[in-house]
Every structure is written in C-alpha cells, then in structure tokens.
C-alpha cells in the first residue's frame, strides 16, 4: 500500500468501514510509515478543530437579537398564507 492509497481511504478507515484485510494492510503500512501516522493525527486534529471552532463556550452567539428581525418574523407569520388556523 502506498501513502496515496492509504489517504484515499482514510475516512473509511477512521469510521471502521473497511474489510479486515484492508485494515490489516493499513496497519502494516502505518507500521512502516511514520509520515502517514502523523497525517492521521493531523487529520483527526482537523476534524476536532472544525467541531470546536464553532461549538465552544466562546462561540459568537448573540445574547440579543435585532428587534427588526423579531418584528419581521412576527409580521411574516401574520402574512403567511399557510399558517395553521
């Protein structure tokens, strides 16, 4: 297995979706290729960083909402022809 072949199926590997033979082949590759071990680490880091950048306690969630938006929503509801009666 080459690094390219490994990286092509990296997602499937991380999600446990490969055959036992494929996983064994990957294990053998990783044993010989520290660069791909580093690549997996950085790939996992990337997934975690994406999740954390938007879901943390410091997320830029407004504490208030523009009054114009509230009024626009309420007006839209009154004008909605499909509103429940």
């Amino acid at each position, binding site marked *: 297995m*080459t*690094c*390219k*072949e490994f*990286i092509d199926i*990296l*997602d*499937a590997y991380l999600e446990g979706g490969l055959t036992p033979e494929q996983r064994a082949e990957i294990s053998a590759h990783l044993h010989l290729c520290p*660069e791909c071990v*580093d*690549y997996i*680490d*950085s*790939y996992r*880091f*990337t*997934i975690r*960083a*994406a*999740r*954390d*950048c*938007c*879901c*943390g306690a*410091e*997320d*830029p*969630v*407004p*504490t*208030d*909402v*523009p009054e114009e*938006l*509230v009024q*626009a*929503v*309420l007006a*839209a*509801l009154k004008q*909605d022809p*499909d*509103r*429940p*009666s």
Partner: protein
Amino acid sequence: MNAENSDLRGKTEVRSEEGAPLTALRAGDPAAFERLVREHAPRMLAVARRYLRREDDAEVAVQDAFVSAHRALPGFQGEAGLGTWLHRITVNAALGLLRRKRRLERETSLEDLLPRFRSDGHREAPGLPWVESRESRLEQEEARRKVREALDQLPEIHRTVLMLRDIDGFDTGETATLLGINDNAVKARLHRARLALRTLLEPHFGGGSDA
C-alpha cells in the same frame, strides 16, 4: 410545509422539555410564539450565520425557519426539545436559501488543496507533526479564528457538507437527505473537504509554525 422542510416531523429525535409553553404554542397563542422567537432567535441566528456568509441572508433564513416552525407546530409532539427541533429547521432554512441562490451548485475545484503525491505514491513535502496549542485562552481563541477563516475558504458545497457532518452532527444519511444527494456523494465530499481543510490549517498548526 414546503419540500425543503417536509422531513421535519419524521426526522426529529426527541426529548420533552417544554411542557406548558408547547401547549400554548400549539394552541396558536401569539404571545407564546413571540416569547419563542425572542428566546431562540439568537441561537438560530448563530447557526444560520455559519451556513450563510451574509448577515442579511442569515436573518432571512431565521425568518423562514420561524415560518416553517409555526406551520409545523401543530404536529410537533414535543418528543425532541424545542431547541433541537428549531436547530434542524434553521439548518434546513439556511440550506434552502443556499439552494435558491444556487450556491450549492457551483462545483469549485479543490485540487489545489488536496495532498500531492510523487509517482511512487509517497506524499510530496510531508511536513512535521502538528502542534496543538493548549496554552492561554487567547491563543486557543486565536486558533479557533484561524480554523473559521480556513473553513470560509472552502467551496460552498464542501464547506456545507463538513458543517453538517462535523459541526452540526448530522449523520451521512441525514446529510444526504438535507442536501438531496446520495450517501456516497456525501462521503466523497466530506473526505475531500477534510483533506482540503487540513491543507489550509497546515501553515498554522504544522510543526514549527508559530500558531
């Protein structure tokens, strides 16, 4: 209920949290719905901003989401928390707006951001192991800002798939339904999006960087 939101009832997984307010909401009490808008609009606006880069688009999506929620409320059984339910409706509304603007149809090439390989299958310029800053809160916030900027550089369809799967936590099947594509397309786009995001983050987190 429009086609984009046609799956809102069936797909919601749920826990009941809001007993009394729900009764008033289902009965069509305008004051109860206004309280709902004021309570949930900030979080919904934050969700919409992630998908839509313009503030006015995000506000339109929130407005659309509340209209959809208002229509669907009589059928909402309260199995899920209202917040969870509204979150999904907001994502649906944001995706609907992206579709109306045809921004999900533009397939921009990601080739420049994918890993490059030599003829023997080894990666070109593999770089050093990554370093994750676990120091001050300021440094962590700076790292998060860099990740958000990198996300914004991804083409819309890849960025959207990545947000649905990795940030909002929808599974492959749900993401496929939300985007109107098949599971394999979701998997392929997610993989390419993650590879591209990794490339964009490498200058900041690759060994030896000052991030």
